[in-house]
């Protein structure tokens, strides 16, 4: 799409100057447009006038007041948010209604579920304006646009490890050594999304041949399994807001800054920290629903979601990191956490093929 060099991402440009109309000004873009139209199997998308865009999203979706209103003011569209439960529930709901969609845009399907979503063709091809500002390693497929990412990482309670005279673990293997016996709490990958992410990190690290043995060793080292993140973090973890007695937990890279921002009283430094090894990167995508009657307006919303204004609003609302490389981070996200340099990643297809089998095998190892 050569047109991209010409168009800077205009998050608040007047409606006539955005999207397809703008591209038409560039002759070369004509070819690209024709390709997109052919891929859609529908006539060229043109402006439909002000529309109500139905945005299906999960329970954790949050934006600051005024952010979506800015989009509505600049485009004349209205955004109607529809809530769907957690990401897996939402994906199922989208699949069940794909013949007669309940939404025009879906946000919040992550890379652990993306393969299934692509198999079911619930999204139609779309390249967001400003897609070139999004980190390359987050891109997955021509139908979906990465909006944010969050690294699932081990967090530790600084004070508690210090009191034990232990240094924080430096690798996943450290956790199986006797020194760390009885210190770790993880989430069940069968019920929890960070739990699944951590399982994938161990599979990435130890390979198909070794990961089951690693978990058997963790089990021998008295790992504790919680149902979900809330139960693990608040119920079993000792650091920060946690009320439990385990100093190491599977949580997010954004948890230490959250402990500062929501600390009461607000601490000067985070009481918890992130282990950089053994992280898994969850990436959340947005896509235009196949069969929507308003693809143009739906595209405008996706363009907006990867634009600077929305992207810079993400960290403090959803506690994940913006996909847009130009977006600047809140100071707490700079001071109190690190973005792991080499988190585990897997293709959506690989995750989709393995997920069910891995979870069953894991359950076998941990209950056996």
């Amino acid at each position, binding site marked *: 799409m050569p047109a991209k060099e010409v168009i800077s991402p205009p998050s608040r440009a007047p409606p006539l100057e955005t999207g397809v109309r703008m591209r038409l000004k560039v002759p070369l873009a004509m070819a690209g447009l024709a390709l997109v139209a052919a891929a859609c199997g529908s006539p060229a998308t043109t402006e439909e006038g002000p529309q109500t865009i139905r945005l299906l999203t999960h329970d954790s979706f949050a934006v600051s007041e005024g952010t979506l209103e800015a989009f509505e003011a600049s485009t004349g569209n209205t955004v109607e948010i529809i809530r769907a439960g957690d990401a897996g529930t939402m994906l*199922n709901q989208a699949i069940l*209604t794909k013949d007669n969609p*309940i939404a025009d845009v879906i946000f919040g399907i992550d890379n652990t579920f993306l393969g299934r979503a692509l198999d079911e063709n619930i999204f139609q091809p779309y390249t967001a304006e400003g897609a070139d500002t999004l980190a390359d390693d987050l891109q997955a497929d021509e139908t979906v646009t990465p909006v944010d990412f969050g690294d699932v990482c081990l967090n530790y309670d600084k004070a508690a490890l210090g009191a034990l005279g232990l240094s924080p673990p430096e690798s996943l293997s450290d956790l199986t050594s006797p020194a760390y016996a009885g210190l770790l709490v993880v989430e069940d990958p069968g*019920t929890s999304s960070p739990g699944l992410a951590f399982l994938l990190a161990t599979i990435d690290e130890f390979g198909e041949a070794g990961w089951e043995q690693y978990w058997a060793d963790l089990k021998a080292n008295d790992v504790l399994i919680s*149902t979900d993140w809330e139960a693990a973090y608040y119920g079993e973890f000792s650091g920060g807001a946690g009320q439990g007695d385990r100093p190491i937990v599977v949580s997010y890279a954004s948890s230490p800054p959250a402990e500062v921002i*929501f600390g009461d009283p607000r601490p000067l430094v985070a009481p918890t920290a992130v282990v950089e090894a053994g992280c898994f990167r969850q990436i959340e995508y947005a896509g235009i629903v196949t069969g929507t009657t308003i693809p143009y307006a739906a595209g405008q919303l996706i363009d907006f979601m990867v634009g600077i204004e929305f992207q810079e609003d993400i960290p403090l*609302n959803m506690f994940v990191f913006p996909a847009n490389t130009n977006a600047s981070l809140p100071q707490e996200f700079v001071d109190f956490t690190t973005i792991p340099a080499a988190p585990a990643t897997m293709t959506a297809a690989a995750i989709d093929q393995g997920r069910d089998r891995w979870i069953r095998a894991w359950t076998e190892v941990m209950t056996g």
Partner: protein
Amino acid sequence: MDRSHDRVMKAQRSTQRWLFALPIAFLTTFFVYPIVRIMAVSFSGDAGIVDSFSTVIRTASLRGTTWFTLWQALASTVLTLIFAFPAAALVGRYQFRGRRLFMASLTVPFVMPTVVVGAAFLALLGPDGPLGVDLRRSVTAILIAHVFFNYAVVVRTVGGNWANLDRTTEEAARVLGAGQWQAFRRITLPQLMPSIRAAASIVFLFTFTSFGVVLLLGGFGINTIEVVIFREATVNLDLAVAGALALIQMVGVAGAVYAYGRSGRQATERSVSASGVVLRPIRGFPARFLQLAALGISALLLAVPLGGLVVRSLTVGGGLGSANFSSLFSPDRTAVVTAPWQAIFNSIQIALGATVISVVIGTLLALAIAQRPTRLSSTMDALVMLPLGTSAVTVGFGFLVAFDWPIDLRTSPILVPIAHALIAVPFVVRTTLPVLRAVRARLREAATVLGASPRRVLALIDLPIVSRAALVGAGFAFAISMGEFGATAFLVRPDRPTLTTAIFRLLSKPGDATFGQAIAMSVILMVVTASLVAAIDRFRVGNLGEF
């Protein structure tokens, strides 16, 4: 004489049909139809119904899960009956100061989000808790939590029925020399049996499909069928296996309901006082002992964990203070939550909707069932319990595939109160039916002999009695909706924050302040619910006195 008898029978039949029309339409549209549709979709994929069932049967762990689901539900039911009976006797027989407040506050556990209760229980059941034993991640913890959640079902159902008993037989027995215990065992207990069985059946179904409590308190490896359905549907994305499990669960529930129905055939003529409630003041040793026992158990079971939450909500950075509440209401509250007023308003609106729907449908059903024992009425009597034993995923996804035609209701806000009402209707039916059945047949016969048409009998005798009983069910319906039991999580719904979704949002962010605010929000939920249930309890129909 024969001809007039025929005429009465005919009129009765038509009255019954007329009463059944709306409830049957409601249950068919919002329960049977969506379930049939989602089952059809689930089994239409590559893995058909046979494959899915064989997968389920081959999976070894499932036998264990089924067995566990069954026995923990039975154990929870028996334990709840035992622990709640003293309090039921207390509110059923005696007037004491704070009785109404006591009855209302019992419903609070019903609305508490499982995560919040889980946190309270984990603090109490941990090694540093007052019990001094580590009961975390144990079946014992699940059973204790089930008694906690269902305590009110037994106290309000049995106690409510007790207060309405006709005391003349018991008093006659006492006059004739029967001891207090003998009079209770021979006269009162048989009179109470229908309501005891009603309460037991509800507790059984609730715990049979227990989800959050099992996930949170049971620890890894302890599952109910409901938990496995959830995993298959939302994590493994295998709707066929989830559907097979949901069918197995429904068959189990239907079997239990059928057995319950059969065991109830004999119990028919019970007496109820049509003149209102006579409660005695507490005097004498047995009464005082009962009061002590009932309040003691209630305090241990309910007040301690809930009180712990109140204390936690007022704890700020190690000391006491109201910062958790004030920060919720301050305009610069942490980004994640809408104004509490908005959430309170939305929750109450939905809950009132659910209450109205379930009281109308439930009362009509109870009246129809009580008209005459027919095959239809005994079928409906059992069928109405099924929603309690149906997995929330099935209902939620069923709505989604069923309601796109003729009007697209799939994202409509009315599905939320309707889903809540499906779960609340059985409560209304179960609390009103024992009372209605107990209306002395004589009373009706007398009215009929005196020339009243079945419709007049309905209006003059059944309706006043049923409206008192329906209030107990209404309180439950309101509380159920405020606490948003399972089903809502699987509905797509417009973005209208309620108290429970606000609590969920707060809990999903780390940090002392958000945790404190989540607990504060739960305390608000507690207070709002208890006051409104108390208000519903207070509501008088005509001058029929209190229930």
